[in-house]
């Protein structure tokens, strides 16, 4: 890409919103499912005898779950849907690279997921009376931006993988829960066995999320936060590099196997 194609970005984002985001499915993805996860967290807490729910992990964590599930689901649906309705071959057959299209789409999907997180913050504030006192606001903002970047890098990686073959959609589905589980979307990483914590260290989302949760819980430990932010950036860049390396191979593979348009 020699220059930023603003027209394409604008057009692809608007198509993405109109075709994929603005449908009843999104209600389930971005609102109902996160709410159910939050409810499970709160009811588990109630069953354990606690009188108040944990707002950061149960409520805002639900929003993170919504963002993530939305990203995985929409990415899978983007490629599978395009393959089914014949769009994939028209996109691949155009002079614009599929990877660029996927990057813009994933960006749109990640932004759509923010709706989940905003709702979770609103629920925490207006329903459960979370006061946000003592929160490291800048820490939260920087961590959130990096979290979006990390999710985008994973999303683009997955999209590339999904284009590989029609079967890869099934495998991407399997990734949704393991990543949520291993990165501690709704509980602190420290409750996991140590070896699992090590594995999650390879996933950029985990670092940004940990920094965001700690900032929400009032941590101003700049060293801790900087390490987490740096790890997020580093691992996201690694993923982007792998994706860039993979895209030529994917482009050739799908044209060899004829899987561009198969249902």
């Amino acid at each position, binding site marked *: 890409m020699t220059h930023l194609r603003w027209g394409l970005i604008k057009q692809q984002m608007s198509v993405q919103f109109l075709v994929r985001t603005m449908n*009843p*499915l999104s*209600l*389930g993805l971005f609102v*109902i*499912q996160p709410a*159910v996860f939050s*409810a*499970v*967290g709160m*009811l*588990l*807490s*109630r*069953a*354990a*005898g*606690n009188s108040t729910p*944990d707002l950061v*992990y*149960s409520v805002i964590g639900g929003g993170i779950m919504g963002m993530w599930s939305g990203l995985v689901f929409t990415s899978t649906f983007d490629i599978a849907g395009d393959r089914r309705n014949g769009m994939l071959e028209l996109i691949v057959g155009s002079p614009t690279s599929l990877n660029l299209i996927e990057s813009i789409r994933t960006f749109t999907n990640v932004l759509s997921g923010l709706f989940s997180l905003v709702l979770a913050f609103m629920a925490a504030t207006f329903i459960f009376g979370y006061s946000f006192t003592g929160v490291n606001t800048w820490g939260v903002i920087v961590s959130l931006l990096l979290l979006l970047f990390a999710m985008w890098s994973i999303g683009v990686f997955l999209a590339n993988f999904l284009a590989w073959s*029609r*079967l890869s959609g*099934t*495998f991407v*589905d*399997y990734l*949704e*829960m*393991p990543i*949520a*589980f291993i990165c*501690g*979307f*709704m*509980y*602190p990483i420290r*409750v*996991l066995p140590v070896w699992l914590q090590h594995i999650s260290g390879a996933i950029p989302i985990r670092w940004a999320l940990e920094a965001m949760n700690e900032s929400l819980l009032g941590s101003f430990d700049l060293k801790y936060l900087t390490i987490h932010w740096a790890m997020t950036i580093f691992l996201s860049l690694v993923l982007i590099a792998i994706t860039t390396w993979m895209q030529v191979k994917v482009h050739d593979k799908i044209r060899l196997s004829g899987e561009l348009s198969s249902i």
Partner: protein
Amino acid sequence: MIDKFVHIIRIYFAEAWLSYQGRFAITSPFGYIAGKLGFPFFLMLFFIFMGKYVGFSDPLYIVIGNILLIPASSGMGGVTLAISDERQWGTLSYVLGSPAPRGPVFMGRAFYYIVDGFVTALLGFGIAAGIFGLDLSTVNIFLLMICSLLIAVTSSGLGFLFGSISLVTRDGWMILSTFLSFLYILVGVNFPVASLPMILQKLSWGLPLTRGIMAARLVMEGEGWSSISSLITGEVLVGLVYIFIGYFFFLFLEKRSMHSGTLDAM
């Protein structure tokens, strides 16, 4: 009479075979098993660590509940998709236009998903015994099998209902998946029904699975038939109600479509 019966049985198993073939046409056995057990397994782990963090001290409670949810989602989801796919692929008119009795056609499709969910649940218990140290030594395995099978059958009734709904709206399966996620809360999968707010508890007792899961939990604690018979009877009755509602709702929609021509529209 016998001919008619044989015909119905043949349709039933032909449909079951079709469902089975449909699943394996697009995936490999590895992908299939990973998909079948992978998602529930990691979801269960997720709930276990959520519980651990908030101080819910009984991870096996979550393990058992989530394993029992497998036949339920298989029965419900499978039947819904078996019906809604007909609409999606535009083959519904051919099924409806044929003289085949509707019951065996769609229940035949349910058969595969019921068996599939049942077998996966048993496999799940085996794996849980290995990984989480779930103690099956005092468990009446036969009763546990009965409970798992029953949960798959009763939930297929709900599948019929959602499948029928999916024939009149293209968002049927979104409604189903939303409902499926409510099951994490409502039927005693992750925590006892008693810890729900009162209004949700009432809703919970009106759904299939609640009694079946409760009965299976008693079996897991080493209880026998006498302790679970009333729960099982209740589960059967509630399940039958949903199967009938689903079936008649389908027939109703089929009749209505002859006037409005809406069934096969995307």
